[in-house]
């Protein structure tokens, strides 16, 4: 983990213990357990409806769990209302108070706690400074751009010095270019402050860009968690493989030393635990060559080739293989060549 995480005591963790949440008939969360370390940038990633926002709201105290506990620094938060929890939220819509200036919005939580004037001023000034909002202090929210509003929402939460900062898809309203910029700023801010951040997003690029660890969620369950490269390079299931980036799936039967498929036999580094199943390979891991490779080669024909500038993407017959490779030499439709699926890049998926 990061240096920050190591310097914090182990007791600074947030434990999500077997949280169950039902909405009428539907089960939003079916027993989710997580351990989030102090000073960690943790991301709850998943498609819409997977329960990630519900889990965040339960941590914030804006929703009540049917079962399970939330424990922060060894203290059970379950019975505490939202206004007594040492956590703050950056809402998806920012939820800035439209009748209050930027300054007053940032001061809101401090004034709620009746902090003395000098302290309020000191903290608001600090908040305005770290998010470069000094110029906008007296503006009203409707006079701000989306990116500025987002920074105000962030400052408003941060000045309270929460134990955990919760971010509910804070970047979904920003355009792509600004989003990439804000991701880097957010990551830098988190490192600088050494705070625990929990981010909810459905954007896998965003999750990988900012997180120390990612928890991938699927219909109310935790599918897989780990560092971004663990989750990306070693997907445990087909869902993990397909949700995080693109993946080629190869189905077959277990054979001595590898996998028997329609397209031939492939060597694997790990023996599958099943008799029949799939393995995955990332498009950029497929190697192309003119000569037949020593093992794991398929004779392929380019069905479609797309030049993307920084790289090129192609779909190959006969196994519907998607690849991503250097932009040159340019592939052209109909070209025949060899594709190698290196054994170390073939990931055995659980059934």
């Amino acid at each position: 983990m990061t240096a920050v995480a190591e310097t914090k005591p182990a007791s600074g963790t947030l434990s999500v213990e077997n949280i169950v949440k039902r909405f009428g008939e539907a089960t939003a969360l079916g027993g989710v357990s997580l351990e989030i370390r102090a000073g960690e940038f943790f991301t709850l990633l998943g498609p819409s409806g997977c329960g990630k926002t519900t889990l965040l709201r339960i941590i914030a105290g804006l929703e009540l769990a049917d079962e399970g506990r939330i424990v922060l620094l060894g203290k059970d938060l379950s019975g505490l209302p939202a206004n007594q929890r040492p956590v703050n939220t950056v809402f998806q819509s920012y939820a800035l108070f439209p009748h209050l200036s930027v300054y007053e919005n940032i001061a809101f939580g401090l004034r709620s706690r009746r902090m003395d004037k000098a302290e309020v001023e000191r903290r608001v000034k600090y908040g305005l400074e770290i998010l470069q909002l000094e110029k906008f202090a007296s503006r009203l929210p409707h006079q701000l751009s989306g990116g500025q509003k987002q920074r105000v929402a962030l400052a408003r939460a941060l000045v309270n010095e929460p134990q955990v900062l919760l971010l509910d898809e804070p970047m979904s309203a920003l355009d792509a270019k600004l989003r990439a910029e804000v991701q880097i700023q957010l990551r830098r801010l988190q490192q600088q402050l050494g705070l625990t951040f929990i981010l909810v997003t459905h954007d896998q690029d965003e999750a990988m860009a900012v997180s120390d660890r990612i928890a991938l969620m699927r219909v109310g369950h935790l599918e897989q968690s780990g560092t971004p490269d663990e989750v990306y390079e070693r997907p445990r299931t087909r869902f993990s493989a397909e949700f995080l980036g693109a993946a080629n799936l190869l189905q077959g039967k277990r054979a001595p030393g590898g996998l028997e498929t329609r397209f031939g036999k492939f060597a694997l580094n790990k023996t599958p635990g099943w008799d029949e199943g799939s393995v995955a390979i990332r498009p950029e891991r497929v190697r192309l060559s003119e000569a037949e490779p020593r093992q794991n080669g398929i004779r392929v024909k380019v069905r479609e080739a797309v030049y993307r500038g920084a790289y090129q993407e192609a779909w190959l017959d006969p196994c519907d293989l998607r690849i991503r490779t250097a932009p040159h030499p340019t592939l052209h439709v109909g070209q025949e060549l060899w594709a190698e699926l290196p054994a170390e890049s073939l990931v055995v998926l659980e059934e």
Partner: protein
Amino acid sequence: MQATPQKPVSSLGKFVVWFGELTTPSRLYRRGLWFLLPAVVWILALLVIPGLALVALSFAERGQYGNVLWHWNLENYSRLLGYGIFGWSPDTIFILLRSIWVAFVTTLICVVLAYPLAFFIATRPARTRYLWLALVIIPFWTNLVIRTYAWQMLLSPEFPFAKVAHALGIIPADGALYPSAFAVYIGMITAFLPFVVMPLFSSVERLDWSLVEAAQDLYSNRVRTFFQGIWPQTLPGLTVGIILTFIPAMGMFVIPDLLGGAKYLLVGNLIQQQFYSSRDYPYGAAVSLGLMILTLFGLAIYRRRGQGVELV
């Protein structure tokens, strides 16, 4: 490629495209004037001209038979301020102050009642929400005079309300609850409640609850959550409701006439008397203008206090 611009054939000047229609600014301008015409005629005929007539009338004099004599004087206004044949009396001033007071109390009670009601209705499931709203609106579809007579009956000695009031020692045996100030308030509040509930409901229905959550998340107690997370969002609806109640309540005469009788005269009754029984049109005009000035004054104060709040 740029096409060679064609010279406009029309002599009307430059062409513009107005939502897909090719036209010229002068044509658009003329069309706009035609569209405005009906409204201008309406306002001139029914508001500006009668208003000016009222101003002129207020400086005239009543003839012996209720006719109008065009002798310009300020007599009506000095009467409005309480100067009569028998010297100064506070009666008219009292009536004016009482009207303001009644309108104020009516508005206040309507707001206090409408607030929880609007929240109750807006938070019902979509299926039953409009049913509840209809229950508020249906009485409002009934003629005001009929509703007011209905209150006369409900407050009469034969009905349980009066009996309960008697048992509590508020009124003598076989007494009625009307005519009285209480009856006037009952009539006024029930008449104006929908005018506050409806605009307030539309504000509450559109309430951004994430602001309430944000206030909670930022350590607010209930009171602070209400005044920072909810109250500012309901101000537009509340403002409309207050204006729709306060202004007509100031000039209301049906309800005080039927439920207040001579015991609780309001400025609306005073005006009505001048134009009917007393046939004193000039004085009636002066009282009307007095009421109008008071109302505008009240609105101006309200606007100044609610700076930045849109009135509609």
